[in-house]
């Protein structure tokens, strides 16, 4: 009985709204990677979209998003990334469930999400690197670091794990921070349509208060401009109507 409701809960996460979000999140993941290479930052940052979608539509959608990101990467860039789908999927699940538990509302919760994500990624990615690739993939700088550590420590598994941990702690820290900033900036009317448990009233109130405190003046100006555009639209539609009336009139005349 319990497992049935669990499965139904998972199925409920995959509404059409969430499904269209997935390609977008895959795009964000890849854009993060592209941006960090154009800004010449020594990071991947390819989990921002997964984290954002974990906040919007839940853990299983995030897991699917992680899987698709790696499938896409292996289609367009290099098939080496395919086995790392395992770590993306697990990270999506972990982040999703931690967000569902309400950890993304407070700063210490965000730090916990970061540490958990880095830990999961370190373990799974090292397992993949050791058992699938025998220690190095040669696609990024981590392999060089691993080689250096192998020389120093004479042990393949330990050096793979430690280089991967170093890289993941920095990378996931920045990823989770950026995702946190982005999620805070998403307007609440947008968040509320994905009826997820964690977007309950208190968090929305929270965001509301923040917005009020630092964007009071801008809100006023927005309101002013809204009324202005309303007015402009009214006059515009009137003129269009008028034009329509005259044109139909003229065409009628033409028919006659």
């Amino acid at each position, binding site marked *: 009985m319990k497992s049935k409701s669990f499965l139904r809960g998972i199925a409920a996460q*995959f*509404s*059409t*709204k969430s*499904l*269209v*979000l*997935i*390609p*977008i999140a*895959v*795009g*964000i993941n*890849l*854009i*993060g990677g*592209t*941006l*960090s290479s*154009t*800004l*010449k*930052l020594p990071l991947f*940052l390819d989990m*921002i979209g997964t984290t*954002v979608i974990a906040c919007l539509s839940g853990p299983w959608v995030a897991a*699917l998003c992680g899987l*698709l990101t790696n*499938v*896409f990467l*292996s*289609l367009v860039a*290099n*098939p*080496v990334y*395919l086995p790392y789908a395992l770590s993306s999927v697990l990270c999506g699940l972990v982040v999703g469930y931690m967000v569902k538990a309400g950890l993304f509302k407070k700063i210490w919760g965000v730090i916990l999400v970061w540490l958990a994500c880095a830990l999961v990624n370190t373990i799974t990615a090292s397992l993949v690197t050791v058992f699938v*690739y*025998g*220690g*190095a*993939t*040669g*696609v990024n700088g981590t*392999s060089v670091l*691993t*080689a250096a550590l*192998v*020389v120093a420590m*004479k*042990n*393949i598994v330990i050096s793979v794990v430690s280089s991967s941990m170093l890289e993941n702690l920095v990378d996931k820290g*920045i990823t989770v921070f*950026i995702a946190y*900033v*982005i999620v805070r*900036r*998403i307007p609440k009317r*947008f968040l509320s*349509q994905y009826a997820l448990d964690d977007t309950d009233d208190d968090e929305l109130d929270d965001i509301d208060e923040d917005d009020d405190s630092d964007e009071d003046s801008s809100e006023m100006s927005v309101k002013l401009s809204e009324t202005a555009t309303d007015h402009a639209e009214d006059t515009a539609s009137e003129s269009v109507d008028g034009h329509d009336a005259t044109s139909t009139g003229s065409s009628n005349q033409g028919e006659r």
Partner: protein
Amino acid sequence: MSGSASAAIPDSPLARMHPIAKIVGICSLGLSTIAWPDFTLGLLFILVLFLAAATAHEFKPFAKIMLGFGIPVTIMLLFIQGCYSPKNTKTILDLDFARMGLEGSLYAAKIVVTLMVFLGSFYLTTKTTYMGRLVAALSQVGVPSKVGYLILASLNVVPQMQRRITVIEQSQHSRGLETSGNIISRARAFIPLLGPVVLSSLTDSQERGMTLETRGFGIKGIRQTSYIKVQWRRTDTLFTACATLLFLLVLAGSIMSGMGIVPLGIQWGGRA
């Protein structure tokens, strides 16, 4: 992107093949390489893949990606496994700081060859298959159409977002955002660049969702039709049968050699 990609695929036996048959081919080649006790069979497969690439008019990019991936990974793995593998007993090369062992080197060679077979066959498949055909073939064999949509939509959305980000980069530049300089100022440029892309894409996805719903995307219990038809031909049956047979033969051969029933010429001892 997908539209131009379909036009860019030159006609060849590989391009005419059914996508599912190609997937069976990848699995058969890759698993046979893993099952075979040493790296020689994999080398043979790599040669076959190069020939296949030549018939598909993809030889140059194929060679580029195989060498571009193969050479660094070979050096890395030969270094890591060859010098520091715990299995090493026989020394074949004495460097100043480390000794290169036979067992580790053979293990590294086996891994590299397996990777190259998977990489090469996968690359050839993606380069000779129009993604629309792949997805149509997948939904023919019973993969839900939603999964197909996800793959195609990701392929479409990503270039669109890349175009959008160049526009945003230019507009943020004109507002005085620094995207060069030291690492901190470059890192600080990240959020002003990423934020607008994410938020505009999210509102975009809302419209996409509504469009799909109005066209009956979420309807259940109806078999959806496909615009692209993929035909399963006799050659595909033949190819799939051959690939399966090859894998079974290799598996049988390596099990027998493992049990010592049939000795296979020279044993390179590449097994882990």
